């Protein structure tokens, strides 16, 4: 698989993400009656956030490290309810010389803990592109809903 710094076709990514995300939203709305309690809203917020990341990651498939890491985290959360986090800390962190910001970037990009800097930058580029698409679509949805 060639290392592409960007999704080869951003529009297809966007459309696929839109489809999956809207499906997730519909599913969520079907199941639960939308009670306006804070807790319910919070739960929905959480669900929607996870759904957006999951749908974007599933569009990208586990081809990229960050999408794979995202899906892995979500699955682990679903399965283990956060007990898996302790496990993830046992890995040896990568040490970077020269830039302290790289460690921050590692925390931001999912799956970036153990990559080398070069690959981390690749993943960051791809991740930023997908995040931008995700944000754009969600904003469109919200604008559509709010009108």
């Amino acid at each position, binding site marked *: 698989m060639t*290392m592409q710094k960007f999704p080869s076709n951003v529009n297809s990514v966007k459309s696929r993400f839109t489809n999956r995300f809207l499906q997730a*939203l519909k599913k969520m709305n079907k199941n639960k009656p*939308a009670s*306006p309690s804070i807790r319910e809203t919070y739960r929905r917020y*959480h669900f*929607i956030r996870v759904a957006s990341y999951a749908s974007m990651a599933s569009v990208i498939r586990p081809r990229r490290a960050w999408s794979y890491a995202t899906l892995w985290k979500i699955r682990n959360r679903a399965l283990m309810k956060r007990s898996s986090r302790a496990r993830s800390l046992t890995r040896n962190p990568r040490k*970077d010389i020269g830039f302290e*910001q790289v460690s921050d970037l590692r925390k931001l990009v999912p799956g970036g803990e153990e990559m080398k800097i070069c690959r981390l930058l690749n993943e960051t580029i791809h991740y*930023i592109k997908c995040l931008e698409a995700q944000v754009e679509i969600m904003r469109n949805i919200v604008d559509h809903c709010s009108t």
Partner: protein
Amino acid sequence: MAGEDATVQLEKRNEEPLNYRDGNMSSQWKLNGNNLTNTSMVINPTSNSMVESLACSSDSMADSFAPPIWNQPIIWQSLGYCDMNVKNNASTSNTLGNGTSIFGPVRSNAMLKGSTFLPDFPVMLPPSLPHFPADSGFIERAARFSCFGGGNFVDTMSPFRISESLNPYTGDSLEAFMGNGSKSLPAMQSQRHEINAIECSKEVSLPVELGTEGSLIKNDKMIENFPSSHDEAKYGIGVSAHESDEAEFSGSGFQEELDDAAGESSAKGLGSKKRKRTGQGTQINVNNGGRQLATESAKDQAEIQQQGDQNQASSKPGGNRDKSGSQGLDLPKEEYIHVRARRGQATNSHSLAERVRREKLSERMKFLQDLVPGCSKVTGKAVMLDEIINYVQSLQQQVEFLSMKLATVNPRLDFNIEGLVAKDLQTGTIQAVLPGLGSSSVPLQGSVNPQFSTVGGRLRESTSQVHCAWEDELHNIIQMGFNSNDPLNSQNLSGSPRLGHMKTEH
């Protein structure tokens, strides 16, 4: 002509399977001479006829020896065996002088495409046989290289130990080339050579795959295509089949490998430990792993040498330890990226690999600079990284914010779609919310546009402000139209902790 006779003899010997177990130096030498002629691809512009004749004989052996063969002349050229011989054997100055004269121009014209050009060297050798005992060391090594296809390195080494003591390049010529103290460990050296030859064999295959180009940029693009972290060092040592400069570069790369082989006594001090370890490692792993170790030790030396401006390169002595920031090219194990040394720059393989790595990183940083808005004026990797981090954080916050928005908006959608009963309530909430939405969307849009032109700190501020506005909206929904839509600073204290808490749910 004596040369032709020698070639005929060599042809006959070429048919034999290579056998290095003779204790006799001269016979060894002859066989090695066969191997030399058989396997060397050095161009000899003055002996084309012999070239052709030997080419025919070498074709039969070419298949098994093709990969490592073509590097041998590089070794010879780059290591300046002939030069060393000149230095060490004054008596053989004539023949060696001829030899050096041949290898001199040859060095610049090494064709590594598997062409079967052959040197005058075997022609010279027979008459000067008595003068060559000191040179047998490298001949044996060449022979060892040529029997690479056989793979019995340990076996080939043992008969050569004696002659190894006569190793000509324990002398100052090594220093001339490698700046080393020159106490070579024959075992490590030979195995290093093995490994290097293996590497070179792999390097040969690469041009076929990549269609090598000299430009670093294209190499970078090719590098992207290979997602393995093991061969990061190899592209610095890879040799293109095209250019003689690259041949020189590969020769120098080989010098570096021999540097590693010459190891503990090197003047590089720091790296000596690593090299020893890598030597042992390579002894163990005469395969991909060994190759990586050798190359990585080479890279260690590069880093020691250079301690470059922003030395982010990884030093991996055993291939397992990350001493410093580990960066890697994502290359598959079997492939090399061919790099060309630029004019006026060091052709050291380490420096070249280092440079390629730096350029890859800078290329990616440039790409990120284009991607992240507002970074075009920023220079410097640290600031760029800050910007990138801020941008990613802002994007993630936007996702959270929008998902929160959707969480609140959706029930309304459902109401609209399903036409639920409590419409006055809903309309009340809608009317309460809409102005809130309208007013908050304005700051949202207001924040959206400037966010792409502002520094990340301000961006975070604006998004948090919008978040706080939405917190207010939530309360509005519950409290039925009590629209306290003061988006901002006064609410920040109440809003942001909650948002922060929510974000930590990630």
